């Protein structure tokens, strides 16, 4: 049976763990808000780009010939895996790695190459026999627009130079703080942009294009892919923080339950010690009286 000292030590240990989980939850909440703001503005940017592409496609009737559209027979597939920067966020990283492993095992005739974003994915795959053609372990935690753009452009260059024939991204779609979903999306080649989106009604004046509608559309498509890439990283970052917030909240609650249980045990033990001492004193007094 544990002594009072043992129980007191145990309670102190759990209490300090609870302080850590509480602090981590608060940090995750702040980081989540930052990631959400960045994600929302990127979402707005993509919406506007998409609308511009749809409007231009209606003006240009013929099929556009763009190096990022159309596609070619797939011999090599590039897989961009966006994981978290660290653990303590439930099954967040594990689920992503599992999805990526499933993609790696699919269709053995196609060679697969990995682009790893986030430290957890990098730590998992770096010692394995998979071909890694790009890694950005710190991009999710310390993202900046410059670094995100550079990573997106590197991935596009791999496709345009023919090193890969298809680019797939595996990331976590942020639904809400409590809900997230793993998404697998083909980034390149671009199949269709803005499916289901309506073109803007024609204006009373004709639109002037500088330099030309074709040139603008040609420049828009790579930006759209960069935007999708950034959105995926930012969404994953928001999802990771949300997952950590929920996990740390649960850990804090569990620590409180443990503290309550041990406090109860502590009180019972203390009561038993007092009762025992009292009965010993009474028994001693009785013996002296006899």
């Amino acid at each position, binding site marked *: 049976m544990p002594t009072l000292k043992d129980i007191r030590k145990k309670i102190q240990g759990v209490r300090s763990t609870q302080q850590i989980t509480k602090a981590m939850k608060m940090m995750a909440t702040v980081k989540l808000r930052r990631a959400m703001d960045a994600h929302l503005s990127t979402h707005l940017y993509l919406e506007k780009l998409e609308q511009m592409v749809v409007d231009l496609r209606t003006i240009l009737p013929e099929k556009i010939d763009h190096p990022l559209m159309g596609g070619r027979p797939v011999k090599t597939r590039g897989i961009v895996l966006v994981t978290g920067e660290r653990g303590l966020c439930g099954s967040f990283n594990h689920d992503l790695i599992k999805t990526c492993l499933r993609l790696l095992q699919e269709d053995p005739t196609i060679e697969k190459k990995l682009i790893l974003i986030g430290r957890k994915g990098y730590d998992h795959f770096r010692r394995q026999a998979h071909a890694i053609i790009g890694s950005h372990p710190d991009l999710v935690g310390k993202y900046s627009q410059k670094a995100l753009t550079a990573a997106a452009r590197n991935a596009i260059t791999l496709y345009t130079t023919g090193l890969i024939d298809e680019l797939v991204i595996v990331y976590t779609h942020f639904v809400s703080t409590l809900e997230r979903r793993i998404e697998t999306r083909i980034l390149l080649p671009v199949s269709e942009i803005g499916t289901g989106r309506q073109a803007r009604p024609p204006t009373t004046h004709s639109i002037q294009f*500088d330099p030309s509608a074709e040139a603008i559309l040609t420049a828009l498509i790579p930006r759209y892919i960069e935007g999708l890439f950034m959105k995926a990283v930012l969404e994953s970052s928001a999802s990771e923080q949300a997952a950590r917030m929920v996990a740390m909240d649960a850990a804090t609650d569990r620590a409180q339950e443990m503290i309550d249980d041990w406090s109860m045990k502590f009180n019972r033990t203390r009561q038993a010690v007092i009762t025992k001492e009292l009965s010993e004193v009474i028994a001693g007094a009785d013996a002296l009286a006899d």
Partner: protein
Amino acid sequence: MKPLTVALVAPSQPLAIFRARSLTVPGGTGYFGILPGREPLITTLGLGLIHIVEEGGKDHWFAVTGGFFELIEDMATVLADALIPGETVEHPAHLRGKPLYIPQEFASEVQKVDLARAMLWRKLHPEPANQS
């Protein structure tokens, strides 16, 4: 005259909206000014400075590294690759006292952002004229 509504949108940066009486943007083929009532326009943007004169006359400066510009029925939208607001700009230390010229087509995104920051800083903090 009805003012222009100017929306500045950039990935991972907060949206900025202004009611403006004039706007100057760095188009892909050179700077151009926009006044209310102008014909619709869609163009690419180059590296340069955006100048917005608000309805009340207040000036706002931003630097962009590239992007797209759309003007439809007095609603101007700037879709910037990277947007640097004048209020928070700092001069990149390595470009201090150096001429600001890197051919845009050869500049990396990092170089472009530094160049845009330096251009904006120098516009907002002009060096005093030589006294001699």
